[in-house]
């Protein structure tokens, strides 16, 4: 097999199907409405669940009266936290005590801790009745003071979100890498700054949803859900319910309408519908409303950085020290996993080795956070790009020049960073230069200077993100060495069925990433057969389909890990096909190969269809050569070697496998009267590694860019001082649509990943690249107004207010 073999820095064009713009097979089906999403699933006799939710940010529950609910015909069951407290175990926490002792249930117990928290669940014969009854739940609250800001939650007299853990701290850790003391001693200057990232959501088109049913005969609960990490979530659910995994079947439908990280912490709802179906002995369905999805679906972590950066006069950064305070809302759920994964990108794209990070994650009276596209790294990348600009400003240097001084050089690739991350290739300086050339950087700088006297506010910003993919769960060992998750793995299965069709499966699921198309291309390459001919079976099933414990589409891992497993499975199966063909054709195996579903001899030219081999392998097994088992089915499990697989005493670990990057350059113009921000030009360059399907990669990169633009300029979860979420629906939480999006120029500088078997890098997240370039560009534009920005979100209203007050928000 010579496919995919390339030498460093160059991708050989020899692949026949990998790298080709093959039409995305899923799209036509989905736009025709032929997909199968969770809400399409109607099991006979399904009951519907709705939540009554908290109208306060923090309050003690004195009494809940649910009697009125039953005045509506069709209401069958109402459950509150009081009942769950005695019937379920609290969810397992990743952190160790004291914060590991906090008690989290599917419904609020004793207190509500954030606005919109589910307080009671109503089950009724239809979803309208369930919502009607939810309004009749009468809760008597005693209001408590709220804590919303991460820094305030650390103060001595701050209200406690969970009293039993004694503080609001979830976890803290220190990364003391290199020698910052010496770096700061050698520095010509120190730049100090504060950087804040704001709270936004993942907002998939399809909200979270699940249907649970219970079979009394087998005592098995079956849950169909959109969960992105089914086998990670399964133990959490089973432990809460007090049942073994053998009594719980987890299914993910073939189509999931986007996730972006926001479909992981839905295990709380899964647990609740499972609990209810066991009591009611009928299927129970819950699909989040949009308001619920925005309120508690999954928020992105807010983080405050206090940074000191030591540099030389020429712009070279010598070291950096920071304290980061991360606000994860009222319940950690998948946190504090995110509190360590920023460490995948410790130095950003810069060659800085002396870094000290004190990291604290805290609770607050806001919605729970969890993975959101670029999870935990987006904040850290943003911090770097703000600090680079701050340094440039202080030195009166061009911000691009400062970056050139600090970029990791291509000859250092693969680059082992200060925390033992292994950046797997890429030519940052060449890409950055090409980006600036394509942007026409100089031209815009000239226009900026020329037009300022006329009052025009043009600004240029650049920012890079490391888009790390295929995570190493061993990073969790930094938090809790006893938590049973490390490494990463996935499975692939390839079958040549009785008719000679090639059928592929993996353990990972699809949320719109075109798995069927791309995975078929990998198998097609091995079998030298048109990808259209490869069948791909979608959907996850913990009982009847294949999986590994890490299976799922998250952390940009599917192509890298499941794709490799599938590649191995295909390769092994091909060998078996050839072995059987050898005996049928009576030719040496070395003369045989496969093309277009036929085995042919390179010497004699003789050929037989795969179907012939399959028939022998599956049915006519008396003809099988000795020592060969019946069937044409190959199963491979792939576990990458991360080299630095486990954290050392300084928290150093290679905590992901691939390190794609993208650099964004944005030109904006700010209207001096309305303060509206218009993007005049946006260019992106990235290195996705070996590309399986360019259309899919482009789609991902475009989506990530648009998500980042929307986060920077629009999406913002605003809480008032009492902890009430003001932007809980699309009237006030504005997601920018295709029409408002600027034209994008997407460039690629492709080098093969030195870490992944197929040379591909995970690129599903994008890490919020435009957030830094836009904030930098806007700040650059309003330089004449002397406005300083701190946050990762900026609106025209903010600029108006800042200009009026001429102070920092």
């Amino acid at each position: 097999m010579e496919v995919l073999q390339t030498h460093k820095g160059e991708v050989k064009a020899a692949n026949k199907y990998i790298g080709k713009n093959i039409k995305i097979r899923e799209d036509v089906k989905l736009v025709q409405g032929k997909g199968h999403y969770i809400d399409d699933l109607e099991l006979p006799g399904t009951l519907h669940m709705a939540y009554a939710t908290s109208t306060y940010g923090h309050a003690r529950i004195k009494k809940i009266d649910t009697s009125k609910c039953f005045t509506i015909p069709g209401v069958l069951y109402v459950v509150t936290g009081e009942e769950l407290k005695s019937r379920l175990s609290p969810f397992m926490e990743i952190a160790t005590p004291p914060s590991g002792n906090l008690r989290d249930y599917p419904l609020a117990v004793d207190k509500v801790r954030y606005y919109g928290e589910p307080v009671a669940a109503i089950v009724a014969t239809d979803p309208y009745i369930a919502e009607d009854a939810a309004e009749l739940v009468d809760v008597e609250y005693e209001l408590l003071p709220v804590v919303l800001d991460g820094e305030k939650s650390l103060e001595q007299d701050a209200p406690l979100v969970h009293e039993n853990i004694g503080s609001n701290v979830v976890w803290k850790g220190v990364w003391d890498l290199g020698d910052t003391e010496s770096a700061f001693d050698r520095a010509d200057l120190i730049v100090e700054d504060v950087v804040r990232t704001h709270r936004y959501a993942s907002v998939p088109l399809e909200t979270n949803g699940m249907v649970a049913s219970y079979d009394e005969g087998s005592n098995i609960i079956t849950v169909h859900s959109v969960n992105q990490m089914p086998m990670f979530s399964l133990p959490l659910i089973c432990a809460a319910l007090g049942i073994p995994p053998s009594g719980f079947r987890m299914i993910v439908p073939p189509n999931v309408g986007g996730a972006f990280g926001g479909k992981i912490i839905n295990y709380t709802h899964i647990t609740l519908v499972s609990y209810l179906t066991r009591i009611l002995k009928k299927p129970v369905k819950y699909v989040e409303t949009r308001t619920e999805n925005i309120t508690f679906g999954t928020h992105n972590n807010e983080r405050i950085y206090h940074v000191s950066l030591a540099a030389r006069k020429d712009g070279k950064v010598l070291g950096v020290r920071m304290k980061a305070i991360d606000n994860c809302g009222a319940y950690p759920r998948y946190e504090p996993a995110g509190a360590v994964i920023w460490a995948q990108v410790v130095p950003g794209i810069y060659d800085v080795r002396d870094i000290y990070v004190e990291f604290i994650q805290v609770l607050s009276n806001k919605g729970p956070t969890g993975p959101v596209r670029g999870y935990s790294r987006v904040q850290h990348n943003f911090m770097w790009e703000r600090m680079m600009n701050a340094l440039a400003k202080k030195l009166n240097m061009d911000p691009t020049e400062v970056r050139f001084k600090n970029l990791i050089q291509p000859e250092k690739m693969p680059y082992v960073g200060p925390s033992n991350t292994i950046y797997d290739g890429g030519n940052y300086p060449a890409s950055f230069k090409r980006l600036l050339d394509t942007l026409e950087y100089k031209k815009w700088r000239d226009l900026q200077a020329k037009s300022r006297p006329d009052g025009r506010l043009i600004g240029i910003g650049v920012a890079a993100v490391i888009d790390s993919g295929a995570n190493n769960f061993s990073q969790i060992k930094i938090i809790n060495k006893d938590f049973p998750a490390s490494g990463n793995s996935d499975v692939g299965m390839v079958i040549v069925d009785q008719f000679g069709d090639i059928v592929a499966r993996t353990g990972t699921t699809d949320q719109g990433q075109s798995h069927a198309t791309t995975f078929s291309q990998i198998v097609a390459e091995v079998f030298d057969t048109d990808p259209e001919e490869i069948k791909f079976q979608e959907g996850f099933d913990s009982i009847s389909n294949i999986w590994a414990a890490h299976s799922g589409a998250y952390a940009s891992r599917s192509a890298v890990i499941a794709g490799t497993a599938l590649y191995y499975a295909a390769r092994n199966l091909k060998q078996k096909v050839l072995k059987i063909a050898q005996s049928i054709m009576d030719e040496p195996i070395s003369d045989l190969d496969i093309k277009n579903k036929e085995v042919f001899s390179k010497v004699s030219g003789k050929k037989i269809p795969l179907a012939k081999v399959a028939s022998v392998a599956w049915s006519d097994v008396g003809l099988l050569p000795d020592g060969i088992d019946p069937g044409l089915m190959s199963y491979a499990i792939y576990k990458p070697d991360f080299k630095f697989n486990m954290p050392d005493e300084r928290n150093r670990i290679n905590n992901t496998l691939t390190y794609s990057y993208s650099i964004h350059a944005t030109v904006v113009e700010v209207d001096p009267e309305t303060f509206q921000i218009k993007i005049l030009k946006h260019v992106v360059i990235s290195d996705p590694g070996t590309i399986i399907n360019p259309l899919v990669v482009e789609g991902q990169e475009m989506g990530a860019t648009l998500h980042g633009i929307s986060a920077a300029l629009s999406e913002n979860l605003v809480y008032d001082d009492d902890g009430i979420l003001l932007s809980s629906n699309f009237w006030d939480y504005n997601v920018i649509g295709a029409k408002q999006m600027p034209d994008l120029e997407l460039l690629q500088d492709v080098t093969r990943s030195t870490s992944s078997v197929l040379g591909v890098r995970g690129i599903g997240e994008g890490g919020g690249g435009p957030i830094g370039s836009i904030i930098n560009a806007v700040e650059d534009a309003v330089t004449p107004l002397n406005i300083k920005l701190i946050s990762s979100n900026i609106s025209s209203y903010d600029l108006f207010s800042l200009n009026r007050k001429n102070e920092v928000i």
Partner: protein
Amino acid sequence: MRPRPFDFYQPTSIKEASEILHSHEDAKPLAGGQSLIPMMKLRIFSPSEIMSLAKIKEMKPYISETGQILKIGAMATHDMIHRSDVLRNAVPVLSEAAGEIADQQIRNRGTIGGNIAHGDPSTNLSAALLALDAEIEVQGIEGTRIIPIDEFFLDLFTTALDHGEIITEFRVKASPHTKQKFMKVAKSDTAFPMAFVALNVGLSEGFVENARIALGVAGPTPLRALEAEKFLLKKRLDSEVITKAAQIATKDLEPPSDVHASEEYRKQLLSTLIKRGLSSFVG
């Protein structure tokens, strides 16, 4: 989210519709549902009775021209209005305002009658029709009457419609020779606008002969900048006059504050839009 329970009526004539409304205190007419349906789904407004206008035979959507008068049926959709060549030539401000409503799907459903009857100061068409001095034909159990648009909007979500009355038609004078403009600031196409203006100014040899300036999200109802209109009369639209007019138009306003814009910011936006709109009419 899902609406609370409601009874549903689907009359086939205006007479029948008026009778239903007259005898059912809580009945609310439903046209395209652009505003009503989301409010019901969020349960911030829950009428117990809904009466659809969709099957009323006299209320088929239309746009017609009778001499100088343009007639627009209340059930005409935003998309029809936006795409009508007649309207684009005769009353461009209305065409522009309709084209800037939300997205295509909403423009396919939303109607001019629903837009106006809702009495919301943030609907594009209310400002455009105000700038065009439209007349509103309404029918009820007592018969038909005409309400000038200046007398139509009474307070937030409150109009001069009596209960039982339905808007049936809008009439505007063709004014192809006046200068017209619709301008809006919004976070996204589907977001509630932060501010907008609709301008309709008649010029004669460079001097203002008549002016109507309508403001959106400027107060509890769609508003006219009456003093600014008066100030502009007989003046030449130079930059000084324009700046002054924008100042006068916004000085006593008290627009609402919300997460997207404060009162102060909205005033600045309105003033800027007026200035830019008027400036676009000269030079």
